[in-house]
Structure formats: C-alpha cells, structure tokens
C-alpha cells in the first residue's frame, strides 16, 4: 500500500527566509502527489499537485514543489516565508497501481514562521 513520510514534526523559519517542508513517498505504481495546508479550526486546503509532466509544479500562495522520482520525494518550497504561512502542512499520495482514488497522508508538519 502507498505511504508518505514527513520526517520533521515542526519546521521553524524566519519570515522572509526560504521554507522547505520535506516529503517522501512509497508506491507500487506511479504516484499522484499532493500538498494540503490546514489552518487552525479549518479544513484542508489544496495547494498543489504532481500528476505528470514537469517535475517542478507551482501552486497557490507562492508555493511550489519538486517531484524527484529517483529520491521518491516531493518537497514543498516557498522562496520567502510569510507569518501567515504558519499552519499544518500535509503531503499525500495516490498510488495509480490500485486504480482507485484512495489517498495516503503523511503525519503533517507544523510550520512556524517567526516574525
């Protein structure tokens, strides 16, 4: 079955500095990869996805992520973090081997942007 690892519990970054949130995955077939953000007391918001094509994908709020097949990674990045980016970030994967829409989520990373 598919799985996702987000190795860090919390990512602290100073405002204006680059932000990186790490994600690695395991699948049997090809991966569809997603990043979601969850603000306090709110549902999950879709940020970006990789389905096929260019390895660098751009999403909402200035976020981007790079798909690396050899390293089975899909790290989320933002060149200049804002205090408002402080939230919980989830990486998720769908394994196309199984032909369904089931998503496996990572444990989540709390991002804290320090003013």
């Amino acid at each position, binding site marked *: 079955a598919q799985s996702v690892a987000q190795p860090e519990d919390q990512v602290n970054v100073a405002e204006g500095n680059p932000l990186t949130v790490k994600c690695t995955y395991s699948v049997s077939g090809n991966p569809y990869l997603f990043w979601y953000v969850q603000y306090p*007391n709110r549902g*999950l918001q*879709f940020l970006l996805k990789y389905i096929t094509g260019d390895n660098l994908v751009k999403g909402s709020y200035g976020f981007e992520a790079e798909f690396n097949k050899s390293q089975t990674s899909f790290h989320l990045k933002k060149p200049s973090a804002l205090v408002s980016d402080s939230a919980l970030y989830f990486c998720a994967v769908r394994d196309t081997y199984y032909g369904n*829409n089931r998503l496996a*989520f990572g444990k989540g990373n709390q991002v804290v942007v320090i003013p």
Partner: protein
Amino acid sequence: SAVISQKPSRDICQRGTSLTIQCQVDSQVTMMFWYRQQPGQSLTLIATANQGSEATYESGFVIDKFPISRPNLTFSTLTVSNMSPEDSSIYLCSVVHPGYEQYFGPGTRLTVT
C-alpha cells in the same frame, strides 16, 4: 473546485450516544470519502461512499460503528455510533476533482465526554 459543507461544525456528545454528520456538495460527484483526524494526528480514511452501493470501509473501520448513507450524488451522511471518548476527532468528507485532487469539507469537531 467543489464547495463542500458539513453539519454540524462541532458537537459535544455523551458516551454511548450516536451522532450523524451531514456532507453536502454543490455539484454531482460519484465518490465521496470520509476521513477521521484524531487530535494531533494525520488523516485516516474511514470509507468510500458511492451513490447506489454500499460504502467500502478501510481496515479497522466497520459499518456497525460508522454507518454511511449516500442517497444521491450531492449528499452523504456518516454516523458515529455508540460513541466513546476515543471517537473524539475531526471528521471530514471529501470529493475527487476531475484533476485528481480531493477537496475537503470544513470538518466536524466531535468531543465525546
């Protein structure tokens, strides 16, 4: 993207009782999903609900505890039955966009005392 609403947004319930959570989507969708997010944890898929057929439950979740209805292509309910404090979680429904990403409702925050 789909607009998804859930009712109630939160509730506090006594152990042994049941709560039914409603999920409404603004467009017709084939599949709807129900997830649980326990405090401080990630999302776990409970079941997949297709209109006109029985829901498909993930390992560790059973129909007697989490019965699901899917009467039409825009609506679903999840019931949490015979609740215990361990059922205290956020329950979310989601749908799949044609571009493969899932969109989530705002969640129902359940506290069982």
